[in-house]
């Protein structure tokens, strides 16, 4: 009974914000914060109460093949927790950050729509409904990328919108083919019927979906929009996009479709591994050469998604555990890094690393949290990124694919290198005299958003401890690995 509220609340908040706003931004802030706090509470509650069970919510009182259903299992609630957690911190960060733009209430409304879309994609068990929610989320993402109103932002948004629409059309094509073959849109039902059909159908639809959702997840070669869009958006939106957006729309859907619906076909796992490795290596190389701090972070998102995809593609219990864990961790530290970048941009007025320097003294909180996040993304103990990468390494070697472990190692080394570069140019070294003129104030809410994520960077390491892992990650892995189980759980057999 909880899941529909996770979609209704942000939608309602969005409409109420547009309804009552009109120069009264404080109401928009109050509404959105209330909404997101309640969403986070609900999603945590639902995650904890779900465990390894599966609950189905059937819309409008009809029964399953006829209606849209919402599936509440460990995987979806896990993703919901991530989305709403990052949303809350992002909103905390936004409150003072977004004042520099005109008409903030529009921002909050779009933000709520974004959350509604992502929550919908995650919660739904109906493939067309997934498409619709995806479009809602994408639509608000396009608008939010362009929110700043600078030329580059419009450019990024336009490119993103065109490429996103092409991939959405591809997804719709895939959905159409699936519908024509199975005559149903409920994913569990499709999963049930697919094995009785020609396997070629799965392959073709799978390839189309891989391209379509691969673009959402920014897997190379479908990644070209990401560095533009993520670096142009306002910082809290960059954090949302990099932290959870590409994961809920891309990776989550890929996992759900390819494991629970297509049943984990071996050839797709191979493709996952290959494109994961390509994304990981090329992404990190691209990041290494960047001087624009947000572009650097954006390219790292591609690289880190590569890790997740490799973990998923290994298709062993450990590999998926690593992938899912890394997904969670990446959301946290990448959001944190984007907040740091936002503070840097706000205070120095530039995104070019070469024009910063010596900010560690002026921005102690930012510098400290950024170091934690950097070490975390580079995979150094005791931060969470270390453990998820370690699990992926172990899984790759255990699965008899040490090559991927070595590529992941190389990626990790280069990640460290590029974040050391970022640290050195932004926070240490000689102070840039021109930069301190426009030093804006970092508000308390922003600080707390960063600190809370930094603390999470440390705390989520604890999820590897078996006792906690059994409560948190293991049910998620079980859902993914239990391929036909999804059919039985959803259809109630």
């Amino acid at each position, binding site marked *: 009974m909880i899941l529909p509220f996770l979609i209704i609340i942000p939608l309602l908040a969005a409409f109420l914000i547009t309804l009552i706003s009109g120069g009264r931004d404080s109401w928009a802030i109050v509404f959105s914060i209330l909404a997101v706090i309640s969403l986070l509470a609900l999603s945590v509650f639902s995650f904890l109460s779900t465990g390894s069970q599966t609950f189905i919510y059937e819309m409008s009182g009809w029964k399953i093949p006829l209606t849209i259903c919402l599936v509440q299992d460990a995987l979806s609630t896990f993703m919901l927790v991530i989305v709403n957690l990052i949303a809350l911190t992002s909103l905390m960060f936004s409150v003072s950050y977004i004042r520099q733009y005109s008409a903030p209430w529009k921002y909050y409304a779009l933000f709520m729509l974004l959350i509604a879309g992502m929550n919908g994609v995650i919660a739904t068990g109906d493939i067309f409904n997934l498409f619709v929610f995806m479009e809602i989320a994408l639509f608000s993402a396009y608008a939010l990328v362009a929110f700043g109103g600078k030329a580059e932002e419009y450019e990024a948004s*336009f*490119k993103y919108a*065109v*490429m996103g629409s*092409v991939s959405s059309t*591809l997804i719709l094509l895939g959905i159409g083919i699936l519908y024509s073959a199975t005559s149903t849109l409920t994913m569990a039902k499709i999963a049930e019927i697919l094995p009785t059909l020609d396997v*070629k159908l799965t*392959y*073709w639809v*799978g*390839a*189309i979906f*891989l*391209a379509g959702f*691969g673009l959402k997840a920014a897997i190379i*070669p*479908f990644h*070209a929009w990401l*560095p533009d869009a993520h670096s142009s958006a306002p910082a809290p939106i960059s954090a949302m996009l990099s932290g959870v957006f590409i994961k809920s729309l891309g990776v989550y859907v890929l996992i759900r479709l390819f494991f629970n619906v297509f049943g984990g076909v071996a*050839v*797709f796992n191979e*493709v996952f591994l290959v494109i994961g490795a390509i994304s990981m290596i*090329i992404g990190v*190389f*691209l990041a*290494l*050469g*960047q001087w624009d701090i947000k572009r650097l972070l954006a390219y790292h998102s591609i690289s880190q998604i590569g890790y997740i995809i490799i973990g998923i593609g290994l298709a062993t219990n450990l590999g998926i555990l690593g992938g899912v864990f890394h997904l969670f961790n990446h959301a946290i530290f990448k959001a944190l890094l984007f907040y740091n970048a936002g503070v840097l941009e706000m205070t120095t007025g530039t995104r070019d690393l070469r024009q910063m320097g010596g900010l560690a*003294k002026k921005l102690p909180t930012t510098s400290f949290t950024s170091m934690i996040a950097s*070490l975390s993304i*580079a*995979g*150094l*103990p*005791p931060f969470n990124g*270390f453990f998820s990468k*370690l699990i992926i*390494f*172990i899984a790759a*070697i*255990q699965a008899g694919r*040490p090559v991927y*472990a*070595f590529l992941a*190692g*190389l990626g*990790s*080394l*280069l990640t*460290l*290198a590029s974040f*050391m*570069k970022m*640290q*050195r140019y932004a926070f*240490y*070294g*000689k102070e840039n005299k021109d930069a301190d003129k426009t030093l804006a104030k970092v508000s308390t809410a922003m600080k707390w958003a960063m600190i809370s994520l930094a603390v999470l960077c440390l705390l989520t390491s604890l999820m590897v*401890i*078996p006792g906690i892992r059994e409560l948190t990650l293991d049910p998620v892995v079980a859902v993914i690995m239990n391929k036909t189980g999804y059919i039985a759980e959803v259809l109630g057999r």
Partner: protein
Amino acid sequence: MAISEISYLILVPLIVALINIVLPVILRKLLTAGTVIYLALLTYRLYTGDVTETLILDTVVFSVDKLALFILIFIQVLSAIILLFSLKGVKQEFQKAFFVLYPMTIAFSNGAVVSVHSISLIIFWGLTGIMLYLFAIMDKTKEASDTAKKTMIIVGGSDVFLILGLVLIWFLEPGYGWNLSNNQVLLSGELAYIAFFCIVIAAFAKAGGFPLHSWVPDFAKDAPVESAAFLPAALDKLLGIYLLARISLTIFKLTPFVHILLITLGALTVITGVMMAMIQHNGRKLLGYHAVSQVGYMIMGIGSGSILAIVGGLFHMVNHTIYKSNLFLALGAVEKRTGTNDLDELGGLGTRMPLTFLAALIGAFAISGIPPFNGFYSKWMIYQGILEIARSQSAGYQIWLLICLILVVFGSALTLASFMKFIHAIFLGKRPAKLADINEAPFNQWLATGLLSILCIGFGLFAKELPLKHFILPVMNQPGLNLLGAYSPLMLIGLFGLALLIGLIIYWITRKVRFDEVYLGGMEALEKFRITGTAFYNEIRNLKPLKGIYDSAEKKYLDIYDLGKHCSFGIAKLFSTIHNGQMLFYNLWLVVGLLILLLVIK
């Protein structure tokens, strides 16, 4: 979860570090000092008493064997002495952070040593790397930040290899689980070799072996001097060589080829380090390059496979940590008084800082391998061990080993040469005018260097009776070694005493020396005509074949870090030109990607 005393080695300093965050500086110092003493006592208890294991989640995580215990003892000893040095004189701006990081570093180093579980070893290993970074960024200058970056990339990056290596070991020998204590994996098959070399990379990066050494001199130059003595000179050597010893003694059974390879790498490390050290003008950098050079002996010793040389290598590691921290601290004491560490600007301080001078002199003798100091003893053991190995090899290998040995002995001679320069430049020669009113270092500083000097002498004179018997030979399960040739320190000290006596007699006979002012071209020598200690060595730098090498080394063409940097930036540039901002081009990727997927998936 059974927490035994071993885990206190980690928990206590860690908790102290966390408490230190909120304390005022004076209490931080006291608390840290107390911790160090407690740890020393605890280690003594472990040494004498029954060792218990710490279990976490029903697996043995912390345990000590003889090797670990040996390393632990010296971690505590050195951290205590260096702490003594740091109690007074740490730069005001670093003080707060320093006494938080110090116990933390001890905690993590202890953790890395007592870990017998791969994962916990990886974690503590990485944490010590982070500590290194945090020490390096204390100074906020441009150079210091660059050094911190470089250090972290090399040391932190090598963690990846450690992880891969240890995971591969686990994969190859699933029977042992993650336990590292009694594994004997045969080096056979590609994966085993890859695993071995991965871990060797990690050990080399930590200890500063060629070609991953380049962070050591930079760190020595730019980090606070106490941390330079503490980490690259002492703890990181202990850890890196500990790991090397661990894998080559208890985890892998090495093959002759690997022995030869390690010996060669060791010889290369010795010679590159010392050649670079010779031409340095910065005292700390000189010591840093020597810290690299000396690692070569340890690598040779441990990699050689002969018991004598392994014992020698371990002994050399201990000796090195002692005399190198001694030298760093002595230089640090000088630097704190004079405000510079540039050898060109120093000179003639021997009469002003006699105690520091004495300590530095003993350190210099020890590192140069002059009997009867400890450096000679361990080097001697290593040479003998390598000769012993050479005896059992085929002719080609023999020649190769001899070449390596000659290189190393030559390197030892060069070490002496460069320390002549070091000592002369700081303590001898004419004192520059601005150093006129320099006084002896504070009490705690000369006490620390003095203690280390006493250790230098003591370990040299009573090597067989003290360190070898109690610490190192138990590691190898050898009751005693009878391969030490005719060398006996006492006999040697007799000879030296004789030589000294003869020297004194000669001095006594010819003591009528006339002191006079120096004139140049009929004028009194000006300050600018003062001959600095480094001047003589500029000749070496300009020798024909060496000049090119030195030039390219100074331009950093030979540094693996810079090579890798250029390489990766080249690749990055290539990729980023493809991202040319043309949306039509991006769309093409999308369509082509889709087509490839459609073609591939079948």
